[in-house]
Structures are given as C-alpha cells and as structure tokens.
C-alpha cells in the first residue's frame, strides 16, 4: 500500500538512501519522495533505519578491523592485481555459494605478517641508527647475554630488534621507585610532591578523598588473604621466557573511597611530530603506552581503577572500569566524565597484566589497539590485539590514576614505538 501512496518502490527508496549515505546529492524530487516513503509507513521507517544502521555498522566494522587488510590491499595494488566489480550472480549468498580464493586468504595473512615484520624492522633500525648517529650513542653490546632470553626467527630481525630495544627509551616514564627513606622524609601525604621519572612537568598531586601509597613489599603490605597481590610484586613473563620483574616501589590506590592522583606532562619533552597547534596528539601519528597493573581481586559491578590519558574533556581510560561490569581489564573513551565505547577483555583484573596500547591519532576519533601480556621479542601483530576501540579526539595533557578499589600500577611508559615502552632493566 505504501508503495502506491508514495509512488516509490522499496528497492528505489533503499538505493536512494545508499546514494545519500555514499555522499551523492539527491534531487529535490527524490528527497521529497523518500521523506514521504519513510513518514507514511512505520514499516518503511524501520527498513530505512535498518539500512542506515547497516552503513554505520559496516563503517565501524571495516575501519576497526581492517588495518591488516588495508595493508594487504596496498600490497595487492603494488602487484597490479586490479579489483573487478563482482557480477550480480556473485553477490548472491546461498548454500551453494563458495567463498572464493581461499588461497588468497592465506596469502594475505602471510603478506600481512611479512609486511608488519618489514615495517617493524624498518622502524627499529631507524630508531637504532638515529640514536647511534644523532645522539653519539654508545652501548656496551654483549651479544651472548643479550640474546639469551630471545627466541626470534630471523637472525637479522633478532639483532635489529634487540639493538633497538637496548637503544630505545620512552619520553615519559614513571617507575614509582621512591625509597622508604625518601617517602619518610616527605612532609605531605600520599604521593603528593613525588617528582621521579622522566618527562613530567611537575610532581604528583594526590587529590582524592583517599590517599595513594608506594608499596615496596606486597607480601607484607596487603589487604588480607584474599588480596591477589600478596604473592609478589608486579611482574610478567612472556611465552618465550622473557621475564619482567619490577624492583623498587609500585603505586597502590587506596581502598574504600576514591583515590585520584594527577601528574602533568612536560609538553616540551614530547617529540615535536606528536604535537600540533592543539597540543599533544597530532593526527597521523602513532603513540605507544605500556604499564603493569593488578587489582585486589576480580570484582566488577561498578568498581574502578584506571589510568586516564588526556584532559578533562576527553581521554582514554585503561584499567578496571565501571562501565565494564565484569571487572576484567578494559578500555574506554571518556567524554566529559562519561565512558564511551567500552571494550572489555577476558583477562581478570586480579591477575597482574602488562598492558600495551597503541594509539593511532586520526582526524576525529582515535583508533586504540591494546594487547595484554604480549610477547616481548617482536612488535605485536595487529591480528592479535585483545581490545580495539575508537576513542574521542585526544589531547594528552596529563596522566590521572583514578580508583575506588585498591589496585597497583607500575612501570608506566609512553613512547613512539613498541620497543620504547617495553619495560627494560635500565629503567628499574
């Protein structure tokens, strides 16, 4: 009936919606008919909205999950493999339909892996050479010792990766290595006035109702037998036996009420390429973040303990989040106090985790990839991400640790490459 009333077929209406959402201009007549078609029948309105939802979903789905695919396509372009539009019969989905080219699927995976490896080697080599030549870099290089824990396929890749790893350094670092004596001599409470680390503009400011603390021995200082942290300090071992054990202190948020610790970055120490007129977070750049964390236990249900990177208007939150009800390690964007686009992992927050995040600054929303406990001997593969989300446009001015549930954090690093943010002995 509606098709008669509005003089528009469903297929034409949906094609016009497609055209509109693909950026084409509708004529006055087309727009009027489409409006009428939508307004005169609720079924039509439902169909129209479902079509718009499909566009929105496809955009999100392809943007978020296709970085590897995009690179594979780029490779295909270079190999001059042109895309030919699929024929109408090829578009149909039915039981007899065969997925074409399984060989190309596997080939694409291999290409993606090789592509990432090549880029990785390129990045680490560039970093290494830059540091060596620009900063008059000198390192005692003990190959036997250096290679001992590394299990890496290519000798060259192993060498360049390791050399870059030795040479790399984050431009922002906080290891919470404050001695008990240093803490005892301090007049202020909590972590107020602590100024350790690299790349900061000033001291920590402990501004919550509860106070933070620096813990040196978790076996002695814990909240009872159910405290998951009493077995030892934060540490991590990857599948190849690369060990990360932290020494010195680690940050602990208070229990019972909210702890908020804030520290501002020295923007002069942020690499120039990462900044533009609006601040730190220039579009087109990539940033890596890592830190270790462990909560009292796995409890969720509105409990939170997270690191917040950004400013008061928008930021990226990583940790135990109120919007991730199960209480597992999670990440979300924040806009004016509201968590959006929450992505929750399968890793329990009572388990110590090394969290590595990569932010791709883009016009508008940023793309964030996170790996939990990744192998340390290679740049993690985008196919292996644990969490992926879009975060609001970020301008990082400060790091804030916010918690209403006792949680430990340590070894916070921010750099321009993966090797910059892998915890290394030099810093602890």
């Amino acid at each position, binding site marked *: 009936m509606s098709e008669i009333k509005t003089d528009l077929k469903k297929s034409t209406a*949906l094609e016009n919606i497609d055209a509109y959402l693909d950026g*084409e201009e509708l004529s006055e007549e087309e727009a009027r008919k489409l409006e009428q078609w939508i307004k005169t029948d609720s079924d039509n309105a439902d169909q129209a909205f*479902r079509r718009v939802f499909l566009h929105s979903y496809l955009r999100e789905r392809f943007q978020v999950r296709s970085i590897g695919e995009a690179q594979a396509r780029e490779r295909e372009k270079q190999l001059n493999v*042109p*895309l030919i539009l699929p024929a109408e019969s090829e578009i149909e989905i039915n039981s007899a339909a065969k*997925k074409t080219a399984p060989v190309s699927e596997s080939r694409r995976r291999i290409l993606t892996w090789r592509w990432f490896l090549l880029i990785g080697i390129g990045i680490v080599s560039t970093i290494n050479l830059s540091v060596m030549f620009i900063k008059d870099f000198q390192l005692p290089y003990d190959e036997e010792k250096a290679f001992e824990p590394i299990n890496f396929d290519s000798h060259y890749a192993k060498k360049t990766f390791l050399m870059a790893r030795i040479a790399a350094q984050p431009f922002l670092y906080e290891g919470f290595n404050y001695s008990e004596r240093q803490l005892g001599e301090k007049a202020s409470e909590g972590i107020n006035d602590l100024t350790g680390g690299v790349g900061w503009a000033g001291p920590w400011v402990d501004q919550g109702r509860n106070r933070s603390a620096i813990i040196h021995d978790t076996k002695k200082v814990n909240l009872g037998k159910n405290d998951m942290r009493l077995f030892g300090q934060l540490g991590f071992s990857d599948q190849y036996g690369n060990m990360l054990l932290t020494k010195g202190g680690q940050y602990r948020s208070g229990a019972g009420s909210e702890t908020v610790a804030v520290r501002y970055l020295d923007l002069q120490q942020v690499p120039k390429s990462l900044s533009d007129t609006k601040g730190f977070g220039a579009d087109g750049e990539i940033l890596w973040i890592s830190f270790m964390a462990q909560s009292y236990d796995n409890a969720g249900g509105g409990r939170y303990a997270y690191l917040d990177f950004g400013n008061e208007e928008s930021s990226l939150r990583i940790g135990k989040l109120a919007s991730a009800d199960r209480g597992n390690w999670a990440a979300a964007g924040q806009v004016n106090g*509201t968590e959006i686009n929450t992505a929750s992992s399968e890793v329990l927050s009572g388990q110590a985790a090394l969290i590595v995040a990569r932010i791709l600054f883009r016009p508008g929303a940023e793309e964030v990839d996170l790996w939990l406990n990744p192998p340390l001997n290679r740049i993690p593969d985008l196919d292996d991400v644990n969490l992926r989300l879009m975060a609001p446009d970020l301008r990082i001015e400060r790091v804030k640790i916010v918690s209403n549930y006792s949680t430990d954090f340590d070894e916070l690093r921010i750099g321009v490459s993966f090797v910059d943010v892998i915890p290394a002995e030099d810093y602890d």
Partner: protein
Amino acid sequence: MDATQTRTLQTESARSRAELARNWVKVQPSLMAFVVASTPQFSDAEDLLQEVAAEIAIRYDEYDNTRPFLPWALWIAKIKIADFYRGKRRDRVLFMGEAMDALADACSRVQQLMTEERDLLEYCLDQLTERSRRLLGLRYTDDLKPKQIADELGTSMGSVRVTLSRIRTTLMDCVQKRAAGEANVGN
C-alpha cells in the same frame, strides 16, 4: 553541608555516572546510526556523536530513569543535529529533515533487534565473496565515494553504486533469513 551530606552526594554522583555509562554502551550503536542518517560524512558523524555524548553527560540529571533511555538520548541527538546544521551552510538536500521523527521512532522500535542482528551480520559478511568484501573495503575502510571507486577501477559510477547497493541488500536479506531461521547458508 556536613560531611555526611557531602559523602551522600558523592555516592549518588558516582552511582549516576556508572548508570549513565551502562546506558550509553547499550544505545551508542543506534545513536551513531541516527547521527549518520543526518550527517552522512562519517567523520562529521563521529564528531557529532561526541557532542551528543557530552551533552547527555551534562544533562543526565534531567533524565527520568523510570523511562527508557534511548528516546531521551535521541531527543538530545536531535537538538545537537539541529545545532550542527545551524552552524553550517546547508548546501544539500536532506531527506532526513522531515523524516527525522519517523526515523527516531524507528530507532526506538528496532534497536534491540539490531543489537541481536550484529552477530548475524558478521556471519553474512563472511559469506560474501572476496571481491564484494574488497569493494566494501574501498567504501568503508578507504572512505572512497562511488565516483572515486569508479575512477580507481576504471568503471562507471553507476556500476559501482548499483553493485554496492546490491551487496547491502544481499546482507540485509541474509540477516533477515538467518534471523527467521530460514536460511540454509553454511549448512
């Protein structure tokens, strides 16, 4: 105000934030689609959605939590969309203008259904041929318009437009068949 009152207010505020976060996660995909309908440039839509999120956070105290959250959030979205177009030269015909309320009603009606259909969409996407997926990739990953895709592939814009439309229709049909348990794909 004494310390007890202050503590009560802070607890209320924390509870309110947590509730808002939970509500937002549920409605965000539908709101994004609604915003996309009004601002087909995806980058504009993402910016606008951020503004909607901010406005909702600011005005959350006004929300009556005995009523559904989505219609209230859509009302805020409509205000922000109107603001968006007031601040810009309106240089294109918007079918959305007059149909906005009808689409908002549709959004409320089919929201739950579409959330459930997302898994089916994944399945159906997987059933597409490699060439169809690559074409979608050019449109949504590389953000190319049909004209640009046509130029790149050396074909006509009309062919690209029709092919994209057919792929979308195929996906929708597949989802509906799977949802109805009628499809025999992959069996």
